[in-house]
């Protein structure tokens, strides 16, 4: 057990040193770090609890996905039936399905065939599992279109992916450093923005769907009347942002939608000096907007954002230039944010903030300070106790633990893992437990010596027997750390990482480094008596 081949000894030392050196890139200045070759650009990331920042979890609601899908089905059904010249009545959303009554009984079968085309294969045409995302059924002259739950699930996952892109675009506009946006589970998005102190603007930006549409205002009815009865078919009542809100009867069909915008910028109206958002359409949008304005000169149209009427100007002349401006009594910041939202595009469904954690820079700095303090005090106390108890062998243990801690940080850097305050606690705890492996070895050596073995034989036997125990006891602790990593999130996961890595490095140093140091000492001193 005490014999080490030269190569093994060398490998042990080199491996330990390299692992410890992996920490160096994390300590460099940003400029020096960037000049490193890419395989060395690995460093420890400080958790938000240490560097300050905002952590937000957004959720895509399945009910919203279902709602959006139902609305789409309703609009598509209207188009399909109109194109097929089928008379219908009462096309609307009833609970979890879209229902429509076909006027003439003999048309029903043809309408059913047409409406069946609206059901799409789940996962797109390529990944054909043969399953459709919508059940289309006929009961007499009523046809219902019901989205299936697997179809909604697939759409939810899709909506999360689309939302991540849009969330990223919106956050990038805020000019913060290194935001991280990740999927969490099947229906959540986790956003981390280091350094952000007040996430209220961020939440406001992410809390809006930003669905923009230009729609004609229906002047045939008085909004007040429509409120009391029912709005005409194909229209709905939307309110303005004013206090108190003013109702408008607007067409459900949009002239042009937000997707057809190519650019949006905040600026000032040259006449009123009021903040506005100017925008440009793509060629498709420009053509449609031009046509619509030509046909409706003199009528008002509504600019609708997330089912709120921002403004409802009257079309004075056809707008053919493909650009325009939105005014709505904005503040400068509001105009800015609206431009950001329009540039980044609309979210497929609204996102809901379900968790938020923000740490200010002051607390972060305090946490680093107390973490470092606890580490130093803990390490010194343990080192002093070990040396007092085991003398020279205690020094060996302290060296092994020091290398151990170096390797933990090296491994964290190599994995690009996040260091949190509980993570630092994990390191401190590892120091306490890592010396246990040395204690186990040394106590066993003493026992063997007391049993009458010679010094060298006792040391050899001590290592052999203690290492088996070390392995057994650490594997069980490692299981606990692994479970913790699996179930934990954020700071707790940070603890599990350092604790788990700590267990591995502890076993490694016990098996190699401690053994190597003791065996070198034995070869050099040829001891007659065990010195502990």
């Amino acid at each position, binding site marked *: 057990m005490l014999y080490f081949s030269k190569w093994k000894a060398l490998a042990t030392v080199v491996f330990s040193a390299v692992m410890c050196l992996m920490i160096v890139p994390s300590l460099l200045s940003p400029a020096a770090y960037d000049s490193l070759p890419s395989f060395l650009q690995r460093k420890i990331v400080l958790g938000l609890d240490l560097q300050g920042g905002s952590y937000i979890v957004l*959720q895509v609601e399945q009910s919203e996905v279902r709602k959006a899908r139902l609305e789409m089905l309703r609009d598509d059904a209207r188009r399909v039936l109109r194109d097929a010249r089928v008379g219908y009545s009462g096309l609307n959303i009833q609970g979890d399905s879209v229902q429509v009554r076909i006027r003439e009984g003999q048309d029903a079968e043809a309408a059913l065939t047409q409406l069946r085309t609206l059901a799409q294969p789940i996962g797109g045409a390529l990944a054909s599992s043969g399953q459709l995302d919508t059940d289309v059924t006929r009961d007499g002259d009523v046809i219902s279109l019901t989205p299936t739950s697997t179809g909604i699930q697939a759409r939810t996952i899709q909506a999360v992916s689309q939302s991540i892109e849009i969330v990223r675009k919106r956050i990038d506009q805020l000019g913060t450093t290194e935001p991280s946006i990740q999927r969490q589970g099947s229906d959540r998005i986790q956003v981390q923005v280091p350094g952000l102190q*007040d996430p*209220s603007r961020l939440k406001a930006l992410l809390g809006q769907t930003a669905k923009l549409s230009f729609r004609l205002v229906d002047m045939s009815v008085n909004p007040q009347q429509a409120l009391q009865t029912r709005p005409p078919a194909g229209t709905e009542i939307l309110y303005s942002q004013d206090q108190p809100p003013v109702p408008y009867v607007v067409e459900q069909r949009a002239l042009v939608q937000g997707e057809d915008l190519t650019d949006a910028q905040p600026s000032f109206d040259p006449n009123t000096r009021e903040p506005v958002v100017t925008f440009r359409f793509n060629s498709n949008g420009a053509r449609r907007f031009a046509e619509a304005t030509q046909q409706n000169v003199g009528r008002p149209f509504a600019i609708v954002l997330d089912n709120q009427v921002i403004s409802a100007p009257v079309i004075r002349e056809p707008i053919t230039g493909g650009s325009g401006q939105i005014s709505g009594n904005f503040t400068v910041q509001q105009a800015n944010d609206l431009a950001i939202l329009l540039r980044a595009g609309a979210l497929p469904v609204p996102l*809901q*903030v*379900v*968790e*938020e*954690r*923000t740490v*200010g820079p*002051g*607390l972060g700095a*305090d946490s680093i*300070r*107390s*973490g470092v*303090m*606890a580490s130093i*005090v*803990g390490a010194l*106390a343990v080192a002093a*106790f070990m040396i*007092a*108890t*085991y*003398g020279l062998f205690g020094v060996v243990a302290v060296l092994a633990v020091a290398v151990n801690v170096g390797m933990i940080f090296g491994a964290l850097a190599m994995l690009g893992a996040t260091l949190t*305050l*509980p993570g630092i*606690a994990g390191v*401190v*705890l590892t120091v306490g*437990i890592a010396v*246990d492996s040395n*204690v*186990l070895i040394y*106590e066993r050596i003493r026992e063997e010596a*007391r*049993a009458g073995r010679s010094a060298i034989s006792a040391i050899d*036997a001590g290592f*052999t027997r203690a290492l*088996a*125990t070390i392995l057994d*006891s650490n594997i*069980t*602790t*490692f*299981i*606990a*750390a*692994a*479970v*913790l990593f*699996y*179930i*934990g*999130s*954020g700071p707790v996961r940070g*603890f599990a990482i350092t*604790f788990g890595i700590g267990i591995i490095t502890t076993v490694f140093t016990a098996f190699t480094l401690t053994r190597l140091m003791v065996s070198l000492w034995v070869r050099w001193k040829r001891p007659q008596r065990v010195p502990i």
Partner: protein
Amino acid sequence: MRLLRIVPDDTKFDFIRFRRISFPISALLSIVALVAFFTLGLNFGIDFKGGTLLEVRYPNQTLNIGDVRSKLEALELGEVQIQEIGSDGEVLIRVAQQPGGESAQQAVVGKVRAALGDQVEYRRVEVVGPRVSQELLSYGIVGLMLAVFCILIYLWFRFEWQFALGASIANFHDIVLTIGFMAIFQIDFDLTSVAALLTILGYSLNDTIVIYDRIREMLRRYKKMPTDELLNQSINSTLSRSVITHVTVTLALLALVLFGGRAIHSFSITMMFGVVLVGTYTSIFIASPLLIYLGVTTRTMAEKDGAEDKREQRAERPAR
């Protein structure tokens, strides 16, 4: 240099007979813990209960706690806890979960910020919605059970079922006592507490296994020794190690409790109780004596080894 020696060589404590005292004590403590858990309940943090937590600091002695209280009460947010911490003008504000779903929780921060103004430093703001808090709680419970289960399976493979059972009873005892401790002192029970419980579990097992390992070795070596004497010898021969490791872990934890900062204070305190007070006691006074009741004898190991593992037996032949 004279080295420090805490435990003298060749101790001969009769730990096994002490079980007549330690078992009733543990039973009593467990009952107290359970009663505390069911009557006082755990002081769930917002991780598991949902709600809002703000840590704010008023600069330069401008903190007027009564003023803060009246400002927040005017918001009518239901149950609001206001607690002054330290002497640096820091206040911890906890607002219970609001009725009305996820967006109602989000509105709280805006209201509180508006009420307290911009002159204060917002050091920490946490909002956990009802859905997330419920998930975190079930994750925590599932995690604890999963860990115990995985460890049980491992021990069963590595040792014998008696050992696995003994270790898990001891484990259960640790968790019950620690949870009771947290209930009695109303320590914040949040995600880091689950981390603490799992670590206590891992650590206590680590301790137990070191002793079990020795028991297994002795069982193979001394086929004729009466079980209680054998258990006693095993505990006594690992006693020095138990105590020394105990001291080092205590030192590390003490550093965390004293200097680790408030953010991990409840974690450190819980660990201190679980590891230092309960874990080691359990391994020595509960886990090992339990083996007698579970029917561990020298035959147990002989049956397991059977004809296999001749090589291992040669390696473990006694030194003398």
